[in-house]
């Protein structure tokens, strides 16, 4: 490739980068600036703070003064549910992942079991939401965090099983074999050797599960009314008779968006594998 042509290609590439970044970031940017705008500025064409409008913290303050309890409860519920679900899922998932990576099952073959776990992702939530509702109702668990922890564990566990399975497969089995020779049991070598070595993937899995449980909406909407409602339901319940109050909506949106996004950005490396659950060795 000639030098000149190379430069043209580079420039075109950067133009594409800029367009794509703008495309991806602008809605977030809009939410951020809207949350710092006075209501009067919201419907005016202003997008540059300090130049076109004077940013204010009013919305955030008013929002927390008027709806403080509702929002803190929402955030706390989201945190509890997401942590609960990801811990359960990763606990069960790393056990199963280890089993699938290290054992050859003869009755149900390994492949079939991996399929079976993966197929949970194909399951439409609409198919289980009604029985879940009836189940939780009869167990008197409606509007509790427990109900949502159980539901979300079920949905995010396939991620955990398959990410951990791949992780354990990559760990050399020799390390564990040495331990078995020294008299360690399978279980001991799992807890003392394999698990600590898989720590990075373990953390990444927790975070991916956390983000998915945090963002879940349909089940949260159906299984909670008030006490146990997470942030996704809190933002959905904020329509007003005076029309949409964008300046408040955006504060709440940001509260719901920021935590899982920040966490997810920290586990960049494992995301591809996590999302496709082993189908791409990326």
């Amino acid at each position: 490739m000639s030098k000149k042509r190379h430069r043209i290609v580079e420039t075109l590439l950067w133009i594409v980068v800029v367009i794509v970044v703008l495309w991806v970031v602008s809605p977030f940017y809009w939410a951020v600036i809207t949350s710092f705008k006075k209501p009067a500025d919201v419907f005016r064409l202003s997008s540059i703070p300090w130049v076109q409008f004077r940013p204010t913290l009013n919305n955030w303050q008013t929002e927390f003064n008027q709806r403080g309890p509702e929002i803190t409860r929402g955030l706390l519920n989201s945190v509890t549910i997401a942590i609960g679900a990801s811990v359960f899922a990763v606990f069960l998932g790393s056990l199963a992942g280890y089993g699938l990576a290290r054992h050859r099952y003869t009755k149900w073959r390994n492949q079939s079991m991996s399929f079976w776990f993966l197929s949970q992702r194909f399951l439409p939530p609409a198919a289980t939401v009604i029985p879940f509702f009836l189940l939780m109702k009869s167990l008197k668990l409606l509007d509790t965090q427990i109900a949502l922890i159980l539901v979300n564990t079920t949905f995010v566990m396939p991620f955990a099983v398959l990410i951990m399975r791949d992780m354990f497969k990559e760990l050399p089995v020799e390390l564990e074999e040495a331990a078995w020779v020294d008299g360690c049991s399978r279980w001991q070598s799992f807890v003392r050797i394999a698990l600590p070595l898989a720590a990075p993937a373990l953390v990444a899995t927790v975070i991916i599960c956390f983000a998915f449980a945090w963002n879940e909406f349909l089940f949260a909407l159906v299984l909670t009314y008030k006490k146990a409602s997470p942030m996704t339901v809190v933002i959905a319940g904020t329509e007003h008779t005076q029309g949409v109050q964008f300046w408040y909506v955006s504060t709440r949106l940001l509260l719901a968006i920021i935590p899982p996004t920040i966490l997810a950005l920290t586990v960049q490396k494992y995301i591809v594998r996590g999302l496709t659950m082993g189908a791409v060795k990326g």
Partner: protein
Amino acid sequence: MKREKGNVFVIPAIIWIFTFTIFPLVYSFRVSISRISYGKITGFAGLSNYVRMFGDYRFWGTLRFTLIFVSISVVATTFLGLGLALVFNRKMRGLKVFRSLLTMPLFTAPVALGYLGVMMFYEENGPVNVLLKYLGMGKVPWLSHPWWATLAVCMVDVWQWTPFAFIILLAGLQSISDEIYEAAVIDTSSGWTVFRYVTLPLISPVLGTVLMLRLVDAFKIFDVPFSLTSGGPGTATRTLTFYIYTQGLRNFDLGYASAMAYFLLAITMMIGMLFFRRYRELYE
């Protein structure tokens, strides 16, 4: 190695999934063929709920919208993702930062994105319409006209899921070794030929994965229409899941909703089967 001992590891997860998906699914099948009143099963209804489904024009309406949405969204996300992946499949400074930025939409709650969409697509001076005005186009009734609302729902979904297709396809492209390309370039000159006969066959399993996951996810969509358009205007953007939710948990017509849920389950499971058959070897 003792075989039986391995069961300890997989059994907890199997029991969990059995309790929380298989059991509910069986129960909901029972509900779908039963007569229900006040949340209690009172009799046998046979297949009447399923029969009713085929005569319900609202069901067909939601199915129609779901299909339109699925086709637009899956095609657009896959093509855009593939295009971007091809463009960025090279060693470039700053690519990592770019990739991180692109994953942001993936970790945003779809329901929150819907509300963000309400702000973006607002008819009077919303940023999208302002931009269109600068480009010399008229005001678009994004959320009040059925066709535009359909497009808005698709656009939010494309915005959220294109990064998914992009990142996975990029990973697929980067796992192809350079030697293969070098050999190909010597033999042929056209970029298209290389793409068609070298790149495409090599990334076909990855492309298949992306397509399948996107298809299945798109069929399940609920959050974005719920928050962006509330299924409106009228019922123009009501998806199957949305209708199931309304019938089952708003109108408490549990049997009918369960029957429709089974229909949706059949669709996604069919897609899943196709995927399994094709890519079995990936799960050795």
